[in-house]
Protein backbone atom coordinates (compact mmCIF):
# COMPACT_ATOMS: atom_id res chain seq x y z
CA UNK A 1 0.00 0.00 0.00
CA UNK A 2 1.08 3.57 -0.66
CA UNK A 3 2.41 5.62 2.26
CA UNK A 4 0.46 8.67 3.48
CA UNK A 5 1.87 11.81 5.08
CA UNK A 6 0.44 15.02 6.53
CA UNK A 7 1.45 18.19 4.69
CA UNK A 8 -1.06 20.79 5.83
CA UNK A 9 -2.98 21.70 8.99
CA UNK A 10 -5.91 24.05 9.63
CA UNK A 11 -8.07 24.78 12.64
CA UNK A 12 -10.75 26.93 14.20
CA UNK A 13 -10.99 26.27 17.92
CA UNK A 14 -12.28 27.84 21.13
CA UNK A 15 -8.66 28.83 21.78
CA UNK A 16 -8.30 30.77 18.55
CA UNK A 17 -8.57 30.78 14.79
CA UNK A 18 -5.56 28.91 13.50
CA UNK A 19 -3.33 25.98 14.44
CA UNK A 20 -0.45 27.91 15.98
CA UNK A 21 -2.45 30.21 18.30
CA UNK A 22 -4.47 27.23 19.53
CA UNK A 23 -1.39 25.09 20.12
CA UNK A 24 0.42 27.91 21.92
CA UNK A 25 -2.51 28.39 24.29
CA UNK A 26 -2.80 24.64 24.89
CA UNK A 27 0.88 24.40 25.81
CA UNK A 28 0.29 27.38 28.14
CA UNK A 29 -2.46 25.43 29.91
CA UNK A 30 -5.26 27.82 28.96
CA UNK A 31 -8.97 26.99 28.83
CA UNK A 32 -11.45 27.93 26.09
CA UNK A 33 -14.47 27.53 28.36
CA UNK A 34 -16.64 30.55 29.09
CA UNK A 35 -20.15 31.61 29.92
CA UNK A 36 -22.55 31.28 26.97
CA UNK A 37 -23.57 34.78 25.85
CA UNK A 38 -25.24 34.14 22.49
CA UNK A 39 -28.54 32.74 23.77
CA UNK A 40 -30.62 32.51 26.92
CA UNK A 41 -29.22 29.95 29.34
CA UNK A 42 -31.36 30.85 32.37
CA UNK A 43 -33.38 27.61 32.24
CA UNK A 44 -30.53 25.34 31.10
CA UNK A 45 -28.57 23.23 33.58
CA UNK A 46 -25.36 23.95 31.71
CA UNK A 47 -24.57 27.63 31.11
CA UNK A 48 -21.01 27.31 29.79
CA UNK A 49 -19.29 26.07 26.66
CA UNK A 50 -16.01 26.32 24.78
CA UNK A 51 -17.17 28.81 22.19
CA UNK A 52 -15.23 30.11 19.21
CA UNK A 53 -14.56 33.82 19.74
CA UNK A 54 -15.94 35.73 16.75
CA UNK A 55 -14.37 39.03 15.79
CA UNK A 56 -12.49 40.97 13.15
CA UNK A 57 -9.56 38.55 13.21
CA UNK A 58 -7.51 40.47 15.76
CA UNK A 59 -6.26 38.54 18.82
CA UNK A 60 -6.77 35.32 16.85
CA UNK A 61 -10.55 35.83 16.80
CA UNK A 62 -12.54 34.09 14.08
CA UNK A 63 -13.60 36.38 11.25
CA UNK A 64 -15.97 34.36 9.05
CA UNK A 65 -15.82 36.97 6.25
CA UNK A 66 -12.25 35.89 5.59
CA UNK A 67 -13.40 32.40 4.61
CA UNK A 68 -16.86 32.76 3.08
CA UNK A 69 -18.88 35.52 1.42
CA UNK A 70 -21.42 37.03 3.84
CA UNK A 71 -24.22 36.18 1.37
CA UNK A 72 -23.19 32.50 1.55
CA UNK A 73 -22.73 32.50 5.34
CA UNK A 74 -26.44 33.26 5.68
CA UNK A 75 -27.31 30.03 3.89
CA UNK A 76 -25.39 27.59 6.08
CA UNK A 77 -24.89 26.50 9.65
CA UNK A 78 -21.64 27.49 11.33
CA UNK A 79 -20.04 24.04 11.04
CA UNK A 80 -19.74 24.63 7.29
CA UNK A 81 -18.09 28.03 7.80
CA UNK A 82 -15.68 26.53 10.36
CA UNK A 83 -14.93 23.72 7.90
CA UNK A 84 -14.28 26.19 5.07
CA UNK A 85 -11.91 28.16 7.30
CA UNK A 86 -9.95 25.13 8.53
CA UNK A 87 -9.75 23.66 5.01
CA UNK A 88 -8.59 26.98 3.54
CA UNK A 89 -5.86 27.23 6.18
CA UNK A 90 -4.78 23.61 5.65
CA UNK A 91 -4.52 23.99 1.86
CA UNK A 92 -2.53 27.23 2.27
CA UNK A 93 -0.30 25.53 4.83
CA UNK A 94 0.32 22.63 2.44
CA UNK A 95 0.80 25.08 -0.43
CA UNK A 96 -1.48 22.84 -2.48
CA UNK A 97 -3.79 24.73 -4.84
CA UNK A 98 -4.52 22.34 -7.71
CA UNK A 99 -4.92 24.06 -11.06
CA UNK A 100 -4.62 21.31 -13.67
CA UNK A 101 -7.53 18.96 -14.27
CA UNK A 102 -5.31 16.03 -13.29
CA UNK A 103 -4.35 17.58 -9.94
CA UNK A 104 -7.95 18.58 -9.23
CA UNK A 105 -9.20 15.05 -9.89
CA UNK A 106 -6.47 13.60 -7.66
CA UNK A 107 -7.56 15.73 -4.69
CA UNK A 108 -10.60 14.84 -2.58
CA UNK A 109 -12.45 15.96 0.53
CA UNK A 110 -13.64 14.10 3.60
CA UNK A 111 -14.84 16.54 6.26
CA UNK A 112 -17.42 15.06 8.59
CA UNK A 113 -19.57 16.28 11.43
CA UNK A 114 -21.23 14.56 14.34
CA UNK A 115 -24.53 16.41 14.11
CA UNK A 116 -24.34 18.90 11.25
CA UNK A 117 -26.81 21.77 11.03
CA UNK A 118 -28.64 21.32 14.30
CA UNK A 119 -29.35 25.02 14.84
CA UNK A 120 -30.71 25.60 11.36
CA UNK A 121 -32.97 22.58 11.69
CA UNK A 122 -34.30 23.80 15.03
CA UNK A 123 -34.89 27.35 13.79
CA UNK A 124 -36.56 26.20 10.58
CA UNK A 125 -38.85 23.81 12.47
CA UNK A 126 -40.12 26.78 14.47
CA UNK A 127 -40.53 28.86 11.29
CA UNK A 128 -42.47 26.03 9.64
CA UNK A 129 -44.77 25.71 12.63
CA UNK A 130 -45.35 29.45 13.00
CA UNK A 131 -45.44 30.63 9.39
CA UNK A 132 -45.93 27.61 7.18
CA UNK A 133 -43.99 25.80 4.46
CA UNK A 134 -43.76 28.73 2.01
CA UNK A 135 -41.30 30.45 4.35
CA UNK A 136 -38.80 27.56 4.35
CA UNK A 137 -35.65 28.65 2.50
CA UNK A 138 -34.36 26.75 -0.53
CA UNK A 139 -31.03 26.76 1.31
CA UNK A 140 -32.48 25.01 4.34
CA UNK A 141 -31.47 21.50 3.22
CA UNK A 142 -28.09 22.21 1.54
CA UNK A 143 -27.06 24.44 4.46
CA UNK A 144 -27.65 21.70 7.05
CA UNK A 145 -26.47 18.47 5.41
CA UNK A 146 -23.31 17.12 7.02
CA UNK A 147 -21.51 16.38 3.75
CA UNK A 148 -21.97 19.98 2.60
CA UNK A 149 -18.83 20.97 4.54
CA UNK A 150 -16.97 18.74 2.08
CA UNK A 151 -19.23 19.99 -0.71
CA UNK A 152 -18.51 23.68 -0.13
CA UNK A 153 -14.77 23.03 0.22
CA UNK A 154 -14.73 20.97 -2.95
CA UNK A 155 -16.50 23.71 -4.91
CA UNK A 156 -14.44 26.57 -3.46
CA UNK A 157 -11.10 24.90 -4.25
CA UNK A 158 -12.03 22.92 -7.37
CA UNK A 159 -11.34 19.54 -5.76
CA UNK A 160 -12.79 16.86 -8.03
CA UNK A 161 -11.56 13.70 -6.32
CA UNK A 162 -13.58 11.68 -3.79
CA UNK A 163 -16.16 13.95 -2.10
CA UNK A 164 -17.12 12.15 1.08
CA UNK A 165 -18.09 12.75 4.71
CA UNK A 166 -17.91 10.75 7.92
CA UNK A 167 -20.69 10.68 10.52
CA UNK A 168 -19.67 8.75 13.62
CA UNK A 169 -20.57 11.11 16.46
CA UNK A 170 -17.49 11.99 18.52
CA UNK A 171 -15.16 9.72 16.56
CA UNK A 172 -15.99 11.47 13.25
CA UNK A 173 -12.74 13.43 12.98
CA UNK A 174 -10.52 10.41 13.68
CA UNK A 175 -12.46 8.21 11.26
CA UNK A 176 -12.18 10.94 8.59
CA UNK A 177 -8.41 11.10 8.94
CA UNK A 178 -8.09 7.30 8.91
CA UNK A 179 -10.52 6.69 6.07
CA UNK A 180 -9.07 9.49 3.93
CA UNK A 181 -5.58 8.06 4.48
CA UNK A 182 -6.88 4.71 3.24
CA UNK A 183 -8.32 6.28 0.08
CA UNK A 184 -4.84 7.60 -0.64
CA UNK A 185 -3.14 4.33 0.30
CA UNK A 186 -5.42 2.45 -2.09
CA UNK A 187 -4.94 4.95 -4.91
CA UNK A 188 -8.40 6.56 -5.02
CA UNK A 189 -6.75 9.95 -4.48
CA UNK A 190 -3.26 11.43 -4.11
CA UNK A 191 -4.32 14.21 -1.75
CA UNK A 192 -7.25 14.36 0.70
CA UNK A 193 -8.56 17.34 2.64
CA UNK A 194 -9.85 15.54 5.73
CA UNK A 195 -11.23 16.32 9.16
CA UNK A 196 -14.30 17.34 11.09
CA UNK A 197 -16.43 20.40 11.82
CA UNK A 198 -19.08 21.01 14.47
CA UNK A 199 -21.39 23.80 15.69
CA UNK A 200 -23.60 22.24 18.38
CA UNK A 201 -23.69 25.10 20.89
CA UNK A 202 -27.33 26.16 20.98
CA UNK A 203 -30.30 25.83 23.29
CA UNK A 204 -31.39 22.60 21.66
CA UNK A 205 -27.85 21.19 21.66
CA UNK A 206 -27.28 21.94 25.34
CA UNK A 207 -30.77 20.71 26.28
CA UNK A 208 -30.23 17.46 24.39
CA UNK A 209 -26.84 16.65 25.88
CA UNK A 210 -28.07 17.74 29.32
CA UNK A 211 -30.95 15.28 29.00
CA UNK A 212 -28.43 12.55 28.16
CA UNK A 213 -26.56 13.54 31.37
CA UNK A 214 -23.39 14.08 29.36
CA UNK A 215 -22.44 17.69 30.16
CA UNK A 216 -20.75 19.31 33.14
CA UNK A 217 -23.32 21.19 35.23
CA UNK A 218 -21.40 21.99 38.43
CA UNK A 219 -18.95 24.60 37.20
CA UNK A 220 -21.18 27.32 35.74
CA UNK A 221 -19.47 29.96 37.90
CA UNK A 222 -15.94 28.74 37.12
CA UNK A 223 -16.11 27.60 33.49
CA UNK A 224 -12.33 27.25 33.08
CA UNK A 225 -12.40 24.52 35.77
CA UNK A 226 -15.22 22.48 34.24
CA UNK A 227 -13.33 20.26 31.81
CA UNK A 228 -11.16 18.14 34.13
CA UNK A 229 -10.49 14.69 32.68
CA UNK A 230 -9.36 12.02 35.21
CA UNK A 231 -9.97 14.40 38.13
CA UNK A 232 -12.17 13.11 40.94
CA UNK A 233 -14.50 16.16 40.69
CA UNK A 234 -15.22 15.81 36.96
CA UNK A 235 -18.95 15.79 36.17
CA UNK A 236 -19.32 15.71 32.39
CA UNK A 237 -17.87 17.21 29.24
CA UNK A 238 -17.86 20.85 28.17
CA UNK A 239 -19.30 21.34 24.71
CA UNK A 240 -16.99 22.90 22.14
CA UNK A 241 -17.25 24.08 18.53
CA UNK A 242 -14.91 24.56 15.61
CA UNK A 243 -13.14 22.50 12.98
CA UNK A 244 -9.89 20.71 12.29
CA UNK A 245 -8.72 19.83 8.78
CA UNK A 246 -5.57 18.05 7.59
CA UNK A 247 -4.10 17.80 4.13
CA UNK A 248 -3.08 14.15 3.69
CA UNK A 249 -0.87 13.26 0.79
CA UNK A 250 0.79 10.27 -0.80
CA UNK A 251 4.44 10.28 0.29
CA UNK A 252 6.07 10.42 -3.15
CA UNK A 253 3.57 13.04 -4.35
CA UNK A 254 4.58 15.21 -1.40
CA UNK A 255 8.30 14.62 -1.97
CA UNK A 256 8.10 15.38 -5.69
CA UNK A 257 6.67 18.82 -5.08
CA UNK A 258 8.96 19.50 -2.13
CA UNK A 259 6.16 19.78 0.41
CA UNK A 260 6.92 20.17 4.10
CA UNK A 261 6.00 16.86 5.78
CA UNK A 262 4.74 16.98 9.37
CA UNK A 263 4.38 13.25 10.00
CA UNK A 264 3.30 9.96 8.48
CA UNK A 265 -0.09 8.36 9.18
CA UNK A 266 1.04 4.82 9.91
CA UNK A 267 -1.80 3.23 11.85
CA UNK A 268 -5.57 3.28 11.94
CA UNK A 269 -7.88 1.00 13.87
CA UNK A 270 -11.67 0.83 14.18
CA UNK A 271 -14.06 -1.12 16.37
CA UNK A 272 -17.57 -1.25 17.77
CA UNK A 273 -18.64 -1.80 21.37
CA UNK A 274 -21.99 -3.49 20.62
CA UNK A 275 -23.00 -2.48 24.11
CA UNK A 276 -25.00 0.77 24.62
CA UNK A 277 -26.05 3.86 22.66
CA UNK A 278 -24.28 6.37 24.92
CA UNK A 279 -22.28 4.49 27.59
CA UNK A 280 -18.93 2.93 26.78
CA UNK A 281 -18.61 -0.77 27.54
CA UNK A 282 -17.26 -1.03 31.13
CA UNK A 283 -14.52 -3.46 30.10
CA UNK A 284 -13.05 -0.90 27.66
CA UNK A 285 -12.71 -3.66 25.13
CA UNK A 286 -13.85 -1.52 22.18
CA UNK A 287 -11.14 1.09 22.72
CA UNK A 288 -8.58 -1.63 23.43
CA UNK A 289 -9.36 -3.32 20.14
CA UNK A 290 -9.25 -0.11 18.08
CA UNK A 291 -5.86 0.80 19.56
CA UNK A 292 -4.57 -2.77 19.03
CA UNK A 293 -5.74 -2.73 15.41
CA UNK A 294 -3.99 0.60 14.80
CA UNK A 295 -0.75 -0.73 16.29
CA UNK A 296 -0.98 -3.87 14.18
CA UNK A 297 -1.52 -1.83 11.02
CA UNK A 298 1.48 0.32 11.97
CA UNK A 299 3.62 -2.73 12.66
CA UNK A 300 4.43 -1.41 16.11
CA UNK A 301 4.28 -2.69 19.67
CA UNK A 302 2.74 -0.73 22.55
CA UNK A 303 6.19 0.18 23.86
CA UNK A 304 6.84 2.13 20.64
CA UNK A 305 4.24 4.72 21.66
CA UNK A 306 5.54 7.96 23.15
CA UNK A 307 2.36 10.00 23.48
CA UNK A 308 -1.35 9.26 23.52
CA UNK A 309 -3.90 12.02 22.96
CA UNK A 310 -6.77 10.51 24.91
CA UNK A 311 -10.45 10.69 24.11
CA UNK A 312 -10.75 11.75 27.80
CA UNK A 313 -13.90 13.85 27.74
CA UNK A 314 -14.20 14.49 31.50
CA UNK A 315 -17.24 12.27 31.97
CA UNK A 316 -17.38 10.19 35.16
CA UNK A 317 -17.62 6.86 33.32
CA UNK A 318 -15.62 7.26 30.13
CA UNK A 319 -12.27 8.54 31.38
CA UNK A 320 -11.51 5.60 33.65
CA UNK A 321 -12.71 3.04 31.13
CA UNK A 322 -10.36 4.44 28.49
CA UNK A 323 -7.52 4.66 31.01
CA UNK A 324 -8.07 1.01 31.90
CA UNK A 325 -7.97 0.02 28.23
CA UNK A 326 -4.74 1.96 27.68
CA UNK A 327 -3.14 0.37 30.77
CA UNK A 328 -4.12 -3.05 29.47
CA UNK A 329 -2.65 -2.21 26.07
CA UNK A 330 0.62 -0.81 27.40
CA UNK A 331 1.30 -3.36 30.14
CA UNK A 332 4.85 -2.82 31.41
CA UNK A 333 5.36 0.07 28.98
CA UNK A 334 2.81 2.22 30.87
CA UNK A 335 5.42 4.18 32.80
CA UNK A 336 7.22 5.37 29.66
CA UNK A 337 4.16 6.78 27.93
CA UNK A 338 2.58 10.22 28.37
CA UNK A 339 -1.18 10.49 27.87
CA UNK A 340 -3.14 13.72 28.11
CA UNK A 341 -6.57 15.03 27.24
CA UNK A 342 -6.46 18.32 25.35
CA UNK A 343 -10.24 18.43 25.83
CA UNK A 344 -9.33 19.87 29.25
CA UNK A 345 -8.42 23.03 27.30
CA UNK A 346 -10.57 22.94 24.16
CA UNK A 347 -13.70 21.26 25.47
CA UNK A 348 -15.26 18.52 23.41
CA UNK A 349 -15.68 19.48 19.76
CA UNK A 350 -17.71 16.29 19.06
CA UNK A 351 -17.26 15.50 15.37
CA UNK A 352 -14.29 17.86 15.07
CA UNK A 353 -12.53 16.50 18.17
CA UNK A 354 -10.71 13.63 16.46
CA UNK A 355 -9.40 15.98 13.78
CA UNK A 356 -8.07 18.71 16.07
CA UNK A 357 -6.60 16.04 18.35
CA UNK A 358 -4.84 14.28 15.47
CA UNK A 359 -3.33 17.71 14.77
CA UNK A 360 -2.22 18.05 18.41
CA UNK A 361 -0.61 14.58 18.23
CA UNK A 362 1.28 15.71 15.11
CA UNK A 363 2.39 18.95 16.79
CA UNK A 364 3.58 16.95 19.82
CA UNK A 365 5.89 15.13 17.40
CA UNK A 366 6.97 18.33 15.63
CA UNK A 367 7.84 20.15 18.86
CA UNK A 368 8.79 17.19 21.06
CA UNK A 369 6.26 18.56 23.54
CA UNK A 370 3.29 16.91 25.23
CA UNK A 371 0.32 19.13 26.03
CA UNK A 372 -1.10 19.10 29.56
CA UNK A 373 -4.31 17.79 31.08
CA UNK A 374 -5.35 20.96 32.88
CA UNK A 375 -7.49 20.91 36.04
CA UNK A 376 -6.20 17.46 36.98
CA UNK A 377 -5.86 18.29 40.67
CA UNK A 378 -6.74 14.92 42.21
CA UNK A 379 -6.71 11.92 39.88
CA UNK A 380 -9.66 9.63 40.62
CA UNK A 381 -7.49 6.55 40.16
CA UNK A 382 -3.78 5.84 40.44
CA UNK A 383 -1.91 4.99 37.26
CA UNK A 384 1.67 4.47 36.12
CA UNK A 385 0.88 6.49 32.99
CA UNK A 386 1.97 10.13 33.06
CA UNK A 387 -1.29 12.06 32.57
CA UNK A 388 0.70 15.32 32.26
CA UNK A 389 -1.26 17.30 34.87
CA UNK A 390 -1.37 21.12 34.58
CA UNK A 391 1.85 21.78 32.66
CA UNK A 392 3.12 20.80 29.22
CA UNK A 393 6.35 18.81 29.10
CA UNK A 394 9.26 18.70 26.72
CA UNK A 395 10.00 15.08 25.86
CA UNK A 396 10.95 13.15 22.77
CA UNK A 397 7.86 12.19 20.79
CA UNK A 398 8.31 10.14 17.64
CA UNK A 399 5.12 8.09 17.68
CA UNK A 400 1.73 9.38 18.85
CA UNK A 401 -1.70 7.79 19.00
CA UNK A 402 -5.01 9.64 19.13
CA UNK A 403 -8.20 8.00 20.41
CA UNK A 404 -11.78 9.01 19.62
CA UNK A 405 -14.89 7.19 20.80
CA UNK A 406 -18.48 8.04 19.93
CA UNK A 407 -22.13 7.49 20.81
CA UNK A 408 -23.36 4.30 19.24
CA UNK A 409 -20.28 2.48 20.55
CA UNK A 410 -17.95 3.52 17.74
CA UNK A 411 -14.18 3.72 18.28
CA UNK A 412 -11.25 4.95 16.19
CA UNK A 413 -7.50 5.20 16.85
CA UNK A 414 -5.01 6.94 14.59
CA UNK A 415 -1.22 6.61 14.88
CA UNK A 416 1.20 9.17 13.44
CA UNK A 417 5.00 8.94 13.34
CA UNK A 418 7.85 11.31 12.66
CA UNK A 419 9.09 10.69 9.15
CA UNK A 420 12.74 9.59 9.26
CA UNK A 421 14.76 12.11 7.28
Amino acid sequence: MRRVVVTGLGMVSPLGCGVEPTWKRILNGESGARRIESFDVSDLQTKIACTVVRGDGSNDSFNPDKWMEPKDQRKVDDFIIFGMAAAGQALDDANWHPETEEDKCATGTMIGSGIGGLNGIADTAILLKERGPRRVSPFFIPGRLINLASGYVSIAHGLKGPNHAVVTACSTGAHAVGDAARLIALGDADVMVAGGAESPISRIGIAGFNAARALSTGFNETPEKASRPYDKDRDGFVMGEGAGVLVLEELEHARRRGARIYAEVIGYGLSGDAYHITSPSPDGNGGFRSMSAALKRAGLTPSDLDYINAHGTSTPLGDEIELGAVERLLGNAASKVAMSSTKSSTGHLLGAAGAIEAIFAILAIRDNAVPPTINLDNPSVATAIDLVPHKAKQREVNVALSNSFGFGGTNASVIVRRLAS
Partner: protein
Amino acid sequence: MSDIGERVKKIVVEHLGVEPEKVVDNASFIDDLGADSLDTVELVMAFEEEFGCEIPDDAAETILTVGDATKFLEKNAKS
Protein backbone atom coordinates in the same frame (compact mmCIF):
# COMPACT_ATOMS: atom_id res chain seq x y z
CA MET B 1 -36.97 54.92 -9.22
CA SER B 2 -40.18 54.34 -7.30
CA ASP B 3 -40.27 53.59 -3.60
CA ILE B 4 -41.05 49.97 -4.44
CA GLY B 5 -38.10 49.93 -6.84
CA GLU B 6 -35.78 51.10 -4.07
CA ARG B 7 -37.04 48.42 -1.71
CA VAL B 8 -36.59 45.74 -4.41
CA LYS B 9 -33.06 46.96 -5.04
CA LYS B 10 -32.19 46.81 -1.34
CA ILE B 11 -33.38 43.19 -1.08
CA VAL B 12 -31.43 42.18 -4.18
CA VAL B 13 -28.23 43.83 -2.88
CA GLU B 14 -28.59 42.08 0.48
CA HIS B 15 -29.42 38.64 -0.84
CA LEU B 16 -27.04 38.43 -3.77
CA GLY B 17 -24.19 40.41 -2.22
CA VAL B 18 -23.78 42.59 -5.33
CA GLU B 19 -22.78 46.22 -5.79
CA PRO B 20 -25.84 48.53 -5.73
CA GLU B 21 -24.76 50.13 -9.04
CA LYS B 22 -25.26 46.80 -10.80
CA VAL B 23 -28.85 46.48 -9.66
CA VAL B 24 -30.55 48.25 -12.56
CA ASP B 25 -33.97 47.58 -14.08
CA ASN B 26 -32.77 45.43 -16.95
CA ALA B 27 -30.29 43.42 -14.85
CA SER B 28 -31.08 39.69 -14.97
CA PHE B 29 -30.77 37.95 -11.61
CA ILE B 30 -29.07 34.92 -13.13
CA ASP B 31 -27.13 36.34 -16.10
CA ASP B 32 -26.01 39.67 -14.63
CA LEU B 33 -26.15 39.37 -10.85
CA GLY B 34 -24.71 35.89 -10.30
CA ALA B 35 -27.80 34.25 -8.83
CA ASP B 36 -28.47 30.53 -9.17
CA SER B 37 -31.88 28.87 -9.29
CA LEU B 38 -32.02 28.54 -5.48
CA ASP B 39 -31.11 32.22 -5.04
CA THR B 40 -34.05 33.23 -7.23
CA VAL B 41 -36.44 31.13 -5.14
CA GLU B 42 -35.15 32.84 -2.02
CA LEU B 43 -35.40 36.28 -3.63
CA VAL B 44 -39.06 35.71 -4.44
CA MET B 45 -39.64 34.66 -0.82
CA ALA B 46 -37.94 37.83 0.35
CA PHE B 47 -40.19 39.94 -1.93
CA GLU B 48 -43.26 38.16 -0.53
CA GLU B 49 -42.10 38.91 3.00
CA GLU B 50 -41.28 42.56 2.33
CA PHE B 51 -44.39 43.38 0.33
CA GLY B 52 -46.92 41.19 2.17
CA CYS B 53 -48.13 39.42 -0.94
CA GLU B 54 -48.04 35.94 -2.38
CA ILE B 55 -46.19 35.39 -5.63
CA PRO B 56 -47.54 32.21 -7.25
CA ASP B 57 -45.00 29.90 -8.94
CA ASP B 58 -46.21 30.73 -12.47
CA ALA B 59 -45.78 34.45 -11.77
CA ALA B 60 -42.41 33.86 -10.12
CA GLU B 61 -41.18 32.17 -13.30
CA THR B 62 -41.73 35.42 -15.25
CA ILE B 63 -39.71 37.53 -12.79
CA LEU B 64 -36.27 37.38 -14.37
CA THR B 65 -34.96 40.92 -13.94
CA VAL B 66 -35.00 43.65 -11.31
CA GLY B 67 -37.50 45.55 -13.47
CA ASP B 68 -39.79 42.48 -13.73
CA ALA B 69 -39.89 42.30 -9.92
CA THR B 70 -40.59 46.01 -9.50
CA LYS B 71 -43.35 45.94 -12.12
CA PHE B 72 -45.02 42.90 -10.54
CA LEU B 73 -44.83 44.35 -7.05
CA GLU B 74 -46.09 47.79 -8.07
CA LYS B 75 -49.29 46.00 -9.06
CA ASN B 76 -49.52 43.43 -6.28
CA ALA B 77 -47.78 44.80 -3.18
CA LYS B 78 -49.95 44.89 -0.06
CA SER B 79 -47.48 46.57 2.26
